[in-house]
């Protein structure tokens, strides 16, 4: 059984299923509206300057910084 890790620790190129987000209700709603909600499938696409990542979800790409990535928890999808 895979454990939940923060997106900041996930390796580039892996796909994960989103479990939860830590943050204010407004932030969670904003994430939801972008497609980042419980059960969504995300993939870590590439690193960005400053320690962030570009992730892909529901057909679109979203850039995030390290502090945001640390607040999103997901579990890896076995290959």
């Amino acid at each position, binding site marked *: 059984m895979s454990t939940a890790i923060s997106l900041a620790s996930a390796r580039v190129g892996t796909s994960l299923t989103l479990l939860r987000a830590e943050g204010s*209700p*407004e*932030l969670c*709603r*904003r*994430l*939801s*509206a*972008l*497609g980042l*909600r419980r059960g969504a*499938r995300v*993939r870590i*696409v*590439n*690193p*960005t*300057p*400053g*320690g*962030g990542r*570009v992730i*892909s979800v*529901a*057909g*679109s*790409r*979203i*850039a*995030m*910084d390290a*502090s*945001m990535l640390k*607040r999103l928890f997901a579990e890896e999808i076995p290959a």
Partner: protein
Amino acid sequence: MIALVGAPNVGKSTLFNALTGSRVTMGNWPGTTVDVARGVWRTTRTRTCDCETCTCGPAASTEMTLIDLPGAYSLDPMSPDEALTRDLLVTSAADEAPDLTIVAVDAAHLSRSLYLVAQLREQAMRVVVGLTMVDVARSRGIAVDTDELASRLGCRVVALHPRLGRGMDDLTVAVHDALDEPVPEAREITDRPAHDLAPMDADLVREDERFGFIESAVEASTGDSGELRASLSDKADRWLTAPIAGPIAFLGVMWVVFQLTTTVAAPLQGALDSLFSGPVSSGVSWLLGVVGLGGSWVDGLLVDGLVAGVGMLLTFAPLMAIMFVLLALLEDSGYMARAAVVTDRLMRSIGLPGRAFLPLVVGFGCNVPAISATRVLPNVRQRILTSLLIPFTSCSARLTVYVLVATTFFGRWAGTVVFAMYLVSIVFVVGVGFLLRKTLWRTMGAEPLVLDLPPYQRPTVRLTASVTWLRLKGFLRTASGIIVATVCAVWLLQAIPTTVDGSFGNVPVENSVYGVTAQAISPVFAPAGFDQWQTTSALVVGFVAKEAVISSWAQTYAVDEPTDGTNPGTLGEHIVADFTSSSGGHPLPAVMAFLVFLLAYTPCVATLAAQKREIGLRWTLFGIGMQLVVAWVSAVAVFQVGRLFW
């Protein structure tokens, strides 16, 4: 009245532009700081009739007001933009609410764009879905069955190609048909949250229900699994947001922007300047001569006041136009989002949002377009903060004064001194930014970066041109009053004699009201070591335009302006003598103090006009006050400390 809503980056603006053409006004929604565009949508109504032999009347032309609300992912009010959307569509009174709402939905990102539709359909209101980006979706293997989607959502769905102008007729028919019908009922909600649930959990249940609704609609009407297919723009992004290649590409783009707003704009500005100071001025003088007023104060007022003022305003027009075009191109192509990702970390470390990089870079060329460039910042508070910091970026007009003064006093070291001024400029931007962040902007959160990268698009000429023209008109309208009034005011002050041996319009500078005022002000600069009235007078003129400092300085000594900026001539000799005496024998620290003061004290009146337009009068005045304080304190510190050493 019809409202146009939709998530950001779905092509809403293109659609709005296609429907309204040039009949658009932009402005803040009353009582808010949200920018809303209003337009007139003229349609030729062709009725959908079933008559076998058509007895319907001729096609009638109707005009409807179309309002382009800012991009919103949902009705949850997370920003003033979204709050306005919610207020207008959901909570406003029946007569204020729109008659129909068109929602722009991105066919390539259906689930996400439909969230707003799901929420709107929970109210009883007329909704028509305009499906954009159908071509992008098709290239990704996504085909949308609009009829199926319409029946699932409970509202009409029209496929559109705003760039190509196709689908507009279908949209017209759908809108007219919907307006003819009574308001439809709200959709049925299958899973309501239990009464005793905590609000946050209740929200989650509602969200889940909406997404369930959306997902079943999407599944039934498309054949897509939701996987991202690699495309050319994806590959481009892998480089443009990468840790090393990204910043390099970004610097390249910034260099191009900087070059265009300086090197390319300069000849155009020079040409306009010559036009006004040459033929137009001579023409006006000649006309006055014909009427018998040649050489009188009327001549002076009209030529050196009015014509000079209007000329100055218009010389900014090509520069502003270039800036607006560049902004539109960067934003529409989608590159701006990538630039924000690249600069985020660096700018955040000095407390500014990532996108503030662009206006600050432009500011080193000229502050005026830089102020307008703050529009790339999504948040009003960020725009105000950045606009207040831009005047600390040392523009190219200030450079002319640095070069003259540095060559006069520092000889071989002139280049180093000028370079040092640019470093001081950066220190000011970072330092004042830091101060403001710790005090007035304390509550402005440093939001974590969550940025949706829009697909790359080719910007359309028509949309870019119309937006640029609208913004340019706006700038000219606001700036004209301020610039012309200030130039005329300075002329007037210089024309009024205070002694008996000058006549109105014909008086040496030191005997005019202007000169007397400068003499009255100059003691303020004693602690900074440059309290000669000629120096003060040059600074006051610098308020109008930094380019005019040298020529007016020469005027106060009644000498000729040096023709070569690096060869100070007699003007240089006067300045040296003055600084030496005013500083009590420590001219070099006094000169440094003067340069620092010139850098920071207040931007030129054109910049102030741009600031007033972007951030309002109150903040502009605050900026002036803050800059004067920062400049004076810094200048005094530089002199008092410097004279211990030199």
